């Protein structure tokens, strides 16, 4: 068993001139980085951290945009044996105050020794610090140690052991205390071995990714796996991709990309938003797997993606699925790459009322479920009932997993770790069933909204809406509604207000939209302002989200039917 630093060093010795990363940036030409440069760039950061007296085993938070600095500072932390954790950068949408509050909360739990950021952003980071907290250094990208020939012998990263924590992966909750998933070197390599086996990963593979590195899919599948396997990686940023989705296709064509991971919405987004003019001469025939992961998977999204790009050489069997989570490092299941994922038709009523996946009865409504494939060779799956007892195949229950690549724990959160793991089984909070050894994910236990690959708690959005004057605490409800056109969920907030004045209501609706977006970076699709007593409560006075969602959808449907334009 090895460690991340040892593996990187070993690959660098063997193939120093091999390109590890082609870094893409819409404002510049592509920038190839060899393994030698990767080690060199990382070494500069490692020396900088050592100069600042950061110790092995301490956490370093990286607050950087998609850039060489982000890549080098990550490997610098690894090379010196510190624990890197990448955080999202402040975007123009998010309010700086909220960002600061979240960062301060993160610092109080994670207790990092250092934070790396840009000179322009230093003041913002310092504003989140408190006297006496754990942060001993805010390290700016313009105060690095001079570049020099790497002297590997001085690097403490090479004397870490496989069971040491290698990195922290933060969940993408919007507000409050985030949970940092602590992953050991051993867990990461066990995952890479098992997942690489499921993919039949080979030295010729080229991964093309635009996924953010603060997300498990981006960090593991779209960064660590190709780099630590000695494969090439073409790395674009989410910021560029969302404005120019055709860059993904052009990169696959140019670099003969073989592997990519996308959240479900991205299939719809690419299929609908790319102009023909950007696809001239594009050849997608090298793509052997485009893996749908991190949002519920929909066969319809695969269909429209295939229809759009088949004439550019896209193979049908390239469209694949996986079920993954940071707590298992990344992959839990993977579909069989030799054929398209299985799509099963089940009886809708049996599914809804009896929580069973049964073959449809003639003439009855059906649900089309797409498989996420089989568990990885190192991962066992069970479906549990509400008393954590295993259910037979075909029954819908909570998915639990056990593997040799599970999290060490939620960092500094033994309470949360204890809650999530029972008798060695990690409870995922997702619902699903098993059919013919394949896992079908059907929903989730909590009211979590998944929008564009991000997990959002409705409670967080509701709390934000209460801060708007005119909205009272407990009198708004947030939920997600799947939108087949976009392939992801639309976020809806319904809020009760006292004023019956239309102009006043409009103003409050605008304020809610602004308040929620600025503080969560989640855009609301519908904001519905209603009269008091609209929101349905449970007998214990809690907001019943599912019931309110149904009420909202019914009203929307009625409005459409009566030819009135929905509000």
């Amino acid at each position, binding site marked *: 068993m090895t460690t991340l630093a040892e593996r990187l060093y070993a690959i660098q010795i063997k193939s120093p001139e091999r390109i590890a990363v082609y870094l893409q940036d819409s404002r510049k030409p592509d920038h190839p980085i060899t393994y030698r440069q990767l080690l060199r760039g990382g070494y500069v950061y490692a020396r900088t951290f050592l100069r600042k007296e950061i110790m092995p085993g301490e956490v370093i938070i990286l607050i950087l945009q998609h850039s060489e600095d982000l890549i080098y500072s990550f490997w610098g932390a690894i090379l010196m044996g510190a624990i890197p954790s990448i955080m999202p950068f402040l975007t*123009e949408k998010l309010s700086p105050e909220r960002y600061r509050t979240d960062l301060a909360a993160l610092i109080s739990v994670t207790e990092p020794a250092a934070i790396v950021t840009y000179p322009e952003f230093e003041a913002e980071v310092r504003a989140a610090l408190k006297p006496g907290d754990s942060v001993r250094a805010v390290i700016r990208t313009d105060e690095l140690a001079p570049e020099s020939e790497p002297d590997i012998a001085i690097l403490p990263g090479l004397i870490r052991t496989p069971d040491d924590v290698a990195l922290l992966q933060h969940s993408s909750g919007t507000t409050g205390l985030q949970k940092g998933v602590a992953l050991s070197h051993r867990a990461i390599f066990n995952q890479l071995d098992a997942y690489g086996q499921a993919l039949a990963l080979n030295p010729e593979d080229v991964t093309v990714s635009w996924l953010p590195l603060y997300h498990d899919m981006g960090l593991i599948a779209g960064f660590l796996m190709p780099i630590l396997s000695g494969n090439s990686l073409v790395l674009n940023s989410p910021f560029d991709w*969302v*404005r120019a989705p055709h860059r993904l296709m052009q990169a696959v064509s140019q670099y003969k990309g073989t592997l990519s991971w996308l959240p479900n919405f991205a299939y719809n987004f690419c299929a609908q938003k790319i102009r023909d003019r950007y696809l001239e001469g594009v050849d997608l025939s090298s793509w052997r797997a485009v893996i749908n992961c991190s949002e519920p998977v929909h066969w319809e999204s695969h269909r429209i993606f295939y229809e759009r790009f088949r004439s550019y050489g896209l193979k049908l069997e390239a469209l694949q699925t996986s079920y993954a989570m940071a707590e298992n490092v990344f992959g839990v299941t993977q579909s069989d790459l030799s054929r398209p994922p299985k799509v099963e038709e089940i009886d809708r009523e049996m599914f809804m009322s009896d929580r069973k996946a049964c073959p449809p009865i003639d003439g009855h409504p059906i649900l089309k479920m797409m498989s996420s494939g089989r568990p990885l060779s190192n991962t066992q799956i069970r479906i549990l009932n509400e008393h954590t007892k295993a259910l037979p195949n075909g029954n819908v229950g909570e998915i639990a997993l056990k593997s040799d690549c599970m999290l060490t724990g939620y960092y500094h959160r033994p309470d949360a770790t204890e809650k999530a793991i029972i008798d060695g089984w990690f409870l995922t909070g997702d619902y699903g069933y098993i059919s013919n050894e394949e896992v079908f994910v059907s929903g989730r236990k909590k009211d979590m909204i998944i929008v564009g690959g991000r997990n959002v708690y409705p409670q967080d959005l509701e709390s934000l809406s209460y801060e708007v004057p005119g909205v009272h605490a407990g009198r708004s409800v947030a939920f997600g509604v799947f939108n087949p056109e*976009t392939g992801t969920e639309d976020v809806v907030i319904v809020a009760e207000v006292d004023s019956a004045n239309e102009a006043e209501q409009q103003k409050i609706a605008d304020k809610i939209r*602004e308040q929620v*977006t600025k503080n969560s970076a989640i855009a609301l699709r*519908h*904001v519905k302002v209603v009269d008091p007593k609209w929101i349905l409560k449970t007998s214990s006075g809690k907001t019943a989200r599912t019931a309110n969602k149904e009420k909202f959808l019914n009203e929307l449907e009625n409005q459409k039917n009566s030819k009135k334009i929905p*509000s």
Partner: protein
Amino acid sequence: MSDSILIVLEQYISSKILKQPDRKINPEEFLISSGMIDSFSLVDLALFVEDTFNVRIEDAELNAQTFNSLNQLAALIESRLEK
């Protein structure tokens, strides 16, 4: 500044993006930095502008510097129409 461009843009944004067809948008109101339009809808807006006015929008232009108000966007469209 052509009012007709503003009206077309306003109607598209209020009905298709905000789903509030009666919503009035002030021509100086911030669209992106206010959170009214997210990055996904921004691409839709650019595609709509290209198709409706027969002008070309580059992806590098999809940001708050060029796209943040109806007036800014209308000015961008007008400058391309003249060419």
